[in-house]
């Protein structure tokens, strides 16, 4: 049986470190602060990882386990430098990177689809193609679709079963 990865919270952070979206899944209300803190503090660790990755010329999006603080915090950075941070419920078993990457890929796809929405650029000057505020606005409360997609992934993670493909690439065969 594959290990179940319980996704407690997801945070999307823009390349300029602006929060895009922070979602928690079935967490007690008073823990919201914890996950906001986690999203924020993770940026420090992500910076460290990025430096290390630059030094080793690595181009991997997956930044691995960032740190453990009652939950396991993993990081991922899209090629366009949007950071995705997830907090997984700690489990006393080995968590395979491939499973975590699968979650990240799903989240990345959700984000990509939402940002592709042409109406995000409504009322935004066209010359500012690289303006991150457009990216940030994807998590804006006005843009429901993105939240919905992320929430679906969050729900799915409770019964997350990695596909056979990931089993093949995982460490133990």
């Amino acid at each position, binding site marked *: 049986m594959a*290990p179940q990865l319980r996704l407690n919270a997801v945070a999307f952070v823009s390349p300029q470190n602006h*929060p895009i979206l*922070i979602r928690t899944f079935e967490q007690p209300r008073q*823990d*919201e602060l914890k996950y*906001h803190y986690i999203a924020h503090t993770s940026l420090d660790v992500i910076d*460290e990882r990025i*430096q290390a990755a630059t030094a080793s010329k690595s181009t991997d999006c997956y930044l691995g386990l960032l740190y*453990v603080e009652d939950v396991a915090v993993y990081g991922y950075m899209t090629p366009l430098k949007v950071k995705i941070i997830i907090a997984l419920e700690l489990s006393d078993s080995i968590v395979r990177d491939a499973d975590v990457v699968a979650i990240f890929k799903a989240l990345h796809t959700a984000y990509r689809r939402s940002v592709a929405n042409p109406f995000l650029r409504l009322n935004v000057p066209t010359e*500012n193609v690289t303006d991150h505020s457009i990216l940030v606005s994807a998590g804006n409360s006005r843009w429901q679709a993105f939240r919905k997609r992320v929430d679906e992934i969050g729900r799915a993670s409770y019964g997350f079963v990695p596909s056979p493909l990931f089993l093949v690439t995982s460490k133990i065969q």
Partner: protein
Amino acid sequence: MTAQRVTITYSAPPAFLATDHWKQVYAALLSQLPLRNLHWKSATRPNIRTIQELDVNLVSAEAKQTEHTSQIPQTVLEKPLLSAYIVVCDDTETYRNTVKKQIKEWHSTVTQRKNMEWLIIHIVRPDAIATSGRMFQMKASVLDKIKADFNVEKRDRCVELVWAYDSDYENPTAWADLIGKLKDGILCAFDAAVAQREEEVKRSEGQRQMPGWNFCTFFILKESLANSYEGMNLYEDALDTYNELEILFFQVLREKNLSWFGTLINPAPKDDSLPLLSHSKKPYRDLILANTISVFDFRTYLLARQCSILGYLGHVVEIARKAVAFLSAFGRRLRDIEEILPTHFIESWTYSSALSVVEQCDAWATGLEMNKATIASFNAVKGELVELARHQLDIIGISVGHLPNRPPFSMAFPSNSRRDGGTPATSSTQRISKSEILMALEDKNAFYKVYIGITNRAIELYATAGRRKFALKMHGDLAALDVHRGRLSEALQTFTSLPAHYAPHGWTSLESYMLFQALGIHTAAEKPRDREWIFILLDFLKAYVQDLGKELLMNTEDHIEYVTSLVQALHEATQEAESDLSHHDHPAISVSVPNGQARTADNRDGALLEVQVTNALPCDVPADEVIINLTGRDGAKLTFLENSATPGIYSLHSSQVRMSRLSLHWLHSSTPPPSSSSASRSKKPPTLVSIPRDIRALDVRLRQPRRMELGTPARIVVAFNTGRNHVTRASVKLSAPSGVEFRHNEATLIDSDNDALEAGEDTFVLSDVEADKTVYVSVPHSDASAFHAMRVNITVEYTTLVEPDVNRSLTLVRVVLTSLPLAINVEDFFRGTRLFTRFTLSSTSHQHIRLKSTELRATRDDDGLKIAKAMPRSRTVTTITPEQPGKFLFQLDSARGQDREPLKLHIIYRVLREEVESVIESAVDSSLSESVSLQQYRAELIDTLVQALEKDASWVNRYEATGELIVPGIPVQDGEVGEALAHLIETLANPSSNQEPSGEWREIIIPVDVPQMHIVAAARLRVLSNPFNPDAVESLPPLFAGQPISALLTIKASFHWAPAEDVEKRSYRMRYDIEERTKDWLVSGQKTGEFIAEDDRTFTTSVTLIALHHGHLILPKVSVAALPIPGEGRMKAPLIPSCETYQAHGAEAILVLPRGGRSTFVVNMGGE
């Protein structure tokens, strides 16, 4: 447990072992150890493993054999990897007889042993070689014989050691061969042993699914491999083995095949306080072998082994990271069985373990050389460990009531655990053993001390690691503790400084949380709601309205109520504020202009602009005033304050909402953009606001005064039109950006009855002006003749009778012409006692100018001046154009020698355009007086006509000649307006005859000086019919070319126009000069001469002229000049009197006939 080392056994004949010789050899051998740079090439591994250094035990074979061997798989190093036999024999005979047998005996035992290599070391003395060297090498040496006897395989297992008692046994060359053989032997044996063990492990693992397979047994078996690697200093391989074991453990765990384990945990008294990474704190291996080890102990042991190997490798960062993950994850696991554990066991265990790992890591790290990045991550991960320990304090603190059960303390609870905060009931009778925790449980202050100490330690570690955001969070925790302990001022300080760290990148959720805390503390501390509080509150509201801002604040109903009360409090606080406060770009409220079209207020002055104020807060915001600032074309600023507005197009500049003393500002557009960061905003197109013209509103216009007098201070006329309102008071201020100054205090009313004008220093004030009335005020200003036109800013502030409480203000920019439309040129002609003055008037612009009259007047009537004007009576109005100037001639007669006041030229004129406009206006007015319904179209009609005239100039000539205004190119329109228009065109084309066009005339008064001249000379050449009687008045006889003609030159001087001061002068010396015109005349006689001129006297002289050809000839000109009067002035400079000469005969011509008569010439034809 120290790692097993590689063992080499040695054997030799017992007799030799007892000698000193052996002892020396043994010592020398030991000195060559440890072995260095071993290269292990394993068949199962892709890479060559290099062992930098290897410790080796060198023991005698007898000693080794006595050791007990157990059934439990030990390391492969437990048995010797190499057995050496030492031969000392120089003599082949001896060898053949005795030594060979000994070796054979030894050899037979060692070759039976598995996984062991053997080596025969032949020790020779250097002199032995020397002696043997001298002999014939017919016989093989001892070594060769040994080789021949024992080297059955390819491998050479015999080696010679050249040994000298006194030689330097450090000499590496002597040892190289032996050491190389030793290494080869060890590696070879090790390789074989490992291969065999690996095979066993594999076999055992393959039987995993079979009943009876025991993980513990397997673990011990596989661990022996890890231990072997460790003994060989192959730490990576050892670590890999342990990692594989760990993975297998989890796999087995998942398969729930754990029957051979004891319980999950079997807490021993000191379990919670023993150092985590010690693998000798319990007899772990025995427990494993006994199948009684608990999962807790097993995991701890596994971790400790992994970490100790990592410690050898110097990977301290990874150790700490592993420890954090283990403590968190396994701690979570233990939560499931918390009820059977001693109270606070998990917390105490995690706390002590985390701190002990930090200590252990520091111990391992001493002496390690780490680069900067590694040091940073080491500190970071130590920070994580310390923070983990801190979280245990949070949990303990909440459960015993030292801390409140709320964030941030409650964040330490695992996300799916109970949160009642009470001490969990437990069935265990044991107690935890960590003294710090026990003390902290008892004593609140001790707890706080530990808590703060640990937190500060974490902050320090994070700070050195560069993890600013972690440190910030910790500071927030400390502040929360301060709040709980009632140290409010410290807490407030922290919470007011923290938001600034979260704001820059839009972490509004955390920012608003911090501000929320700050507000709460502020209230709790009962601090005055001062400026600082207002700004905290505004910041809070700012963060609150952002997307993420309210995520961390209680639940929905609560925070609406909370914000409502805050806004209420804010309103109260702003009313009591001591000074004005302003805040820029607050996002809670936004002001926009949805429709840029302002409306005129129907019955009041000013325009109405629809402004949309959006409040993002969930509650009402009391606002006193909304102010919109607009920027106009000329940089004119307009404040939209529900009062007067100048028509035009504006862009929205800024807006403002006032709440008592607090004003919130927004900048909508800025030119130029203040910084590049706001570039994105400034790229938005500006919001345009167009304000329509309200023709019934108060208006101020400027114009040139109708009557201008050159030489007096320039004035400007302000036409103040009240429009629909009775204006009670209006102050008007004029200013010109060009620097022209207006003298408000000299302002005067023009044709006024009783309107009061108060002239002030920089404004003038009009009071009580009735509605629909225009008041003209003349304001003098400094010289503006350098400009063609002058831009004047007019600011009017006024109140009306209807709305006495509303102060309206109006800012206008008007341009007024300062140059004259006319250019004037004066020419003077003296004729004796008369003076003719000719004025040439020309238009300076393209405009035609209509002149009604020009008049030259003396300033005083008793001046004795007689002025006559040459002006045709027939025409009343003259038109001058740029191409066609008008000339006006005046004749002046005056008495001699009087001081003359300057004359004044009065010109009454108007520009054609003004005239035509007034013609149209009066025509429209008279036509509209018949129909009231058309009254509203008055402006439109006038506009249509004026525009039509502007487009086509063909009407001008006809109008100027006849007064008929043929309006060209107006399309026929239907309806009332069309009819009215048609009627108007008809009227304009047929003006009532002989009526001067209505409208105002302008007047310019130009002062003209009466010119002065010392001498006016009239020169005349008169041809005499009879040279002997100059006075005869006979008709001239015919004159012929070539004939001498007598002429009389007379010069009459007049001193009439001499300046008054020189009236006394009676005579001047003068010189005349007859012009030489060699083509027409020969002049004979005194062509040039001097004479004394006296007033009204004539100087006469005669000359003879000869005409050079026939025709009408003009007589030569005579020039007359006054000679300088020598040195009369004080400076003795010669003074030249002014003099003007006119030719009295200038217009006369003389008819010269061709020479008549006949001449006969006789030409001899020859022939005689």
